[in-house]
């Protein structure tokens, strides 16, 4: 299948999601279930990654800042900006592409192979709307929240690492955090988070929804979904930086 055919089918899947729900209550229930699966289910890994990401970032920045002209509080400023601009949205979303993406692709793939999607279709349910849309909406709700939590924890991790290793005092770190703070960076991080959330949920949903074959194909589609999502995230990261950071 050519790239254009695949992209066309992907767009048709997205278009097919928008129809009147058969039962709002059931769709709401599914949305809440997916919010729990995607948001709460990924919280643990996000907390661990974010904390260490900030800590390592602080230590490595301090290691590279050898000039006596630059004050050490700059470490906090650099940690803050790298975490907000890149680490929290991009790194966390790449990890989530693996965690959430493979889950979505394998769940839908298994439902397809075991004819559960056909069973729903025959009942008269729009499976694209009932199975795919709640996953995308849940990702759009929870992933930006996870990115915000990640940014906060990353900055805190940086503070803890730099104070524990004696590089900076807590006061110096706080001074550094407030230096040249630009709110636009937070806006940029959130734009990235929403874009990546859509990529993380819709691309694996596409690969899972259209899987054909058996267990082996589910595994393959799951891997492909994660790889394509990661590449799409990196590409979108570049495009967004080029457009929004002029």
């Amino acid at each position: 299948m050519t790239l254009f055919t695949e992209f066309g089918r992907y767009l048709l899947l997205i278009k097919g999601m928008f129809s009147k729900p058969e039962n709002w209550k059931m769709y709401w229930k599914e949305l809440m279930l997916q919010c729990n699966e995607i948001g709460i289910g990924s919280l643990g890994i996000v907390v661990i990654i974010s904390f260490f990401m900030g800590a390592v970032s602080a230590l490595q920045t301090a290691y590279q800042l050898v000039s006596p002209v630059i004050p050490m509080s700059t470490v906090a400023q650099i940690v803050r900006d790298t975490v907000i601009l890149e680490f929290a949205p991009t790194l966390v979303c790449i990890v989530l592409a693996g965690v959430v993406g493979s889950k979505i692709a394998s769940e839908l793939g298994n439902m397809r192979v075991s004819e559960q999607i056909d069973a729903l279709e025959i009942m008269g349910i729009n499976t694209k709307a009932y199975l795919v849309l709640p996953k995308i909406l849940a990702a759009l709700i929870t992933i930006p929240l996870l990115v915000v939590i990640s940014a906060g924890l990353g900055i805190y991790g940086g503070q803890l690492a730099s104070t524990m290793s004696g590089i900076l005092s807590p006061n110096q770190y706080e001074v550094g955090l407030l230096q040249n703070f630009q709110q636009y960076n937070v806006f940029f991080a959130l734009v990235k988070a929403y874009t990546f959330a859509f990529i993380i949920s819709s691309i694996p949903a596409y690969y899972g929804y259209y899987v054909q074959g058996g267990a082996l194909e589910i595994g393959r589609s799951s891997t492909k979904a994660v790889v394509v999502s990661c590449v799409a995230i990196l590409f979108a990261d570049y495009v967004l930086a080029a457009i929004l950071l002029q």
Partner: protein
Amino acid sequence: MIEVKNVRKGFGDKTVLNGVSVNMEAGKCNLIIGASGSGKTVFMKCMVGLLVPDEGEICYNGKNFTGLNDEEKKEIRQQIGMLFQGSALFDSLTVEQNIMFPLNMFTNDSLSKKLKRVNEVLERVRLKDVNKKFPAELSGGMKKRVGIARAIVLNPNYLFVDEPNSGLDPQTSLVIDKLVKEITTEYNITTVVNTHDMNSVMEIGDHIIFMYQGKKEWEGSNKEIIFNKNERLNEFIFASEFLKDAKDMRMLEQTGKIDQNRDMDKLIK
């Protein structure tokens, strides 16, 4: 009643259904039989709308299903119940939740009313104490029965059954066949069964359609099938030497060339 008019379906260069026309009668078990690759599954998928035919019409009570838009198709689909080959139960839901799913989606009944209906259909398929079990905890035959219960919970007008006996032992197969037959008669629904199990054919085949290379090759009842003169159908039914001998014996009995009341014990000795 389902009327199928000149349905054609192909995938790429390969034609799978080549102008099939047939009427599926209400209150009867309509069986589609044929060898693997004869187009049975594609035919059934076209009938339920999982595949769109390239040509032809599929009419449910006179309404051309293939010509309807998605919203209009939904109305007819809500009158269809289907039992899949692998049962297609939702793994993460219990038996009770599986059967209640169509009720939750399409009715505004109270929980107690829905539970009452679930228990009614479970009783109808003769299953007890399985409400809280997950599909993984059930045997193949039990899964099929839960699948039937889910298919009939909304009182459908049409029941589609794909390979009901695959992976089941002969006794359990018989139970499922009888259940399908009873439900068809009791609710006066149009049942379409896709099978290549000859026990099912003889047990419940009110109306049998034999498919061969994407075409309807023969049509008749279970009473007519034994003495049919169609070579391809006979090759399919009497595939083994044992069955061929059994048929010859039955023919000789019918023509009076062998005594029907012969003492089999003496013959064996």
